[in-house]
């Protein structure tokens, strides 16, 4: 998999700001201006700028996200599909940033969009341990269950544009194809693929699935979830997958005795999900999806180290991903052996 730097947009930050201003003026009118631009330092495959949109006395903080790298076999949804999803989620009153405007080729900014800026913290270490977020943590399993129930209630026909993705067609086959593409031999993962296929639960009703719903991908304030981000893994599938991913050991950030994001217990998440209109939770299916989650995260880590070794995306962090794959293998084998809650 080769990373391709996007050539059709400038990398000069001053020029980007000018182009961005022109883009928002085309949307809001020529009286607006942008100020107080700040570049976010995290978020590898996008350039993220925060800026104030000002119109006389009115000021609003917005976020511009430009795609800067694309992978020729990317498992992630393109920016235009993510924007469409945000529009769908926002229209169903889900807690997501408001989608404002999508870039067009004429904007000279490449692929991407502008969304509203929502306040909050995303860093898991702070969210699961700072005293400031104690009240938010107490509410988290319930709020997470309610959010997912609301997402899964969106009529699946509205997400038809997701139906052709590999993950929508067959999630195990999708991971298998990616894993085979990277050409690395991992007997533990090969075993997990066989075990998952052999024990695959039946999906009672397909829904839109966020695909990466976890602590770290949501902005949280002292009262809980402010907005859910990062929709690039969304697809159609078993709603139990979203519950399972949230409880995958890697996303417990060391708190293995608190399956729900390293914060709470499954019972609270499941009862909130059902009370909010989600269908009856199949606990065994969720456990299966937790194991699938460890496999999927392992494959994503192999993707990162492949990018580092072969794909021109050199980084100590991506190198570390390669060796960290063993941790996910350990999680999924222990779970299969019944040694992990």
């Amino acid at each position, binding site marked *: 998999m080769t990373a391709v730097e996007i050539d059709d947009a400038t990398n000069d930050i001053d020029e980007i700001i000018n182009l961005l201003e022109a883009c928002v003026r085309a949307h809001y009118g020529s009286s607006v201006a942008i100020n107080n631009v700040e570049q976010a330092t995290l978020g590898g495959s996008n350039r993220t700028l925060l800026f104030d949109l000002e119109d006389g006395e009115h000021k609003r903080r917005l976020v511009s996200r430009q795609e800067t790298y694309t992978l020729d076999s990317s498992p992630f949804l393109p920016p235009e599909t993510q924007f469409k999803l945000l529009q769908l989620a926002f229209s169903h009153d889900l807690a997501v940033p408001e989608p404002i405007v999508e870039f067009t080729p004429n904007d000279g900014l490449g692929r991407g969009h502008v969304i509203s800026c929502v306040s909050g913290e995303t860093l898991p270490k702070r969210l699961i341990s700072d005293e400031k977020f104690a009240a938010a943590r107490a509410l988290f399993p319930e709020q997470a269950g309610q959010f997912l129930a609301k997402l899964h209630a969106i009529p699946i026909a509205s997400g038809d544009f997701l139906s052709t993705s590999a993950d929508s067609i067959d999630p195990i086959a999708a991971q298998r194809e990616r894993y085979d593409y990277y050409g*690395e031999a991992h007997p533990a993962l*090969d075993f997990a693929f066989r075990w998952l296929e052999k024990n695959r639960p039946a999906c009672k009703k397909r829904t839109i699935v966020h695909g990466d719903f976890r602590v770290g991908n949501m902005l949280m304030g002292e009262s809980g979830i402010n907005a859910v981000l990062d929709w690039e893994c969304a697809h159609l599938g078993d709603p139990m997958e979203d519950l399972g991913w949230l409880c995958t050991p890697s996303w417990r950030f060391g708190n293995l005795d608190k399956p729900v994001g390293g914060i709470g217990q499954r019972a609270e998440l499941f009862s909130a999900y059902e009370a909010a209109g989600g269908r009856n939770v199949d606990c065994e299916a969720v456990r299966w999806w937790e194991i699938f989650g460890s496999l999927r995260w392992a494959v994503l880590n192999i993707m990162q180290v492949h990018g580092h070794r072969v794909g021109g995306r050199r980084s100590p962090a991506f190198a570390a991903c390669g060796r960290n794959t*063993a941790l996910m293998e350990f999680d999924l084998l222990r779970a299969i052996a019944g040694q992990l809650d």
Partner: protein
Amino acid sequence: MAQDNPSVSELLETVHEFIADVSEKLDGQDKYFALCSMFLLEIVQRELKDWQPSITDDDKRLMSLLDEKSSSTEVIEQLSEKIKQGGFDDRMDELLGVLLKHVEAKVKVTKPSYLG
């Protein structure tokens, strides 16, 4: 035993690259120590060239699952292929036990605290 990618030599190269990059932004003693660190990494790289890996208990356990004699790198690929082809579908529990020990051995190197 065979570890996952990146190899130990590649890990050293990655760190060397990062220090080289950062050293351009440093001055004074910090820059000097960064250059020293790169020098030390280069020594380790050269020493590694003479290092001969030995057959570990993990290698022996994995090899016992296969019919052919293999090196520690080959056994991983051969085992992976045999599992994919369903060669252990009637021995999943046995395979799980061996693979757990194999993965524990890798985690012991990657992040021993993860073993609890």
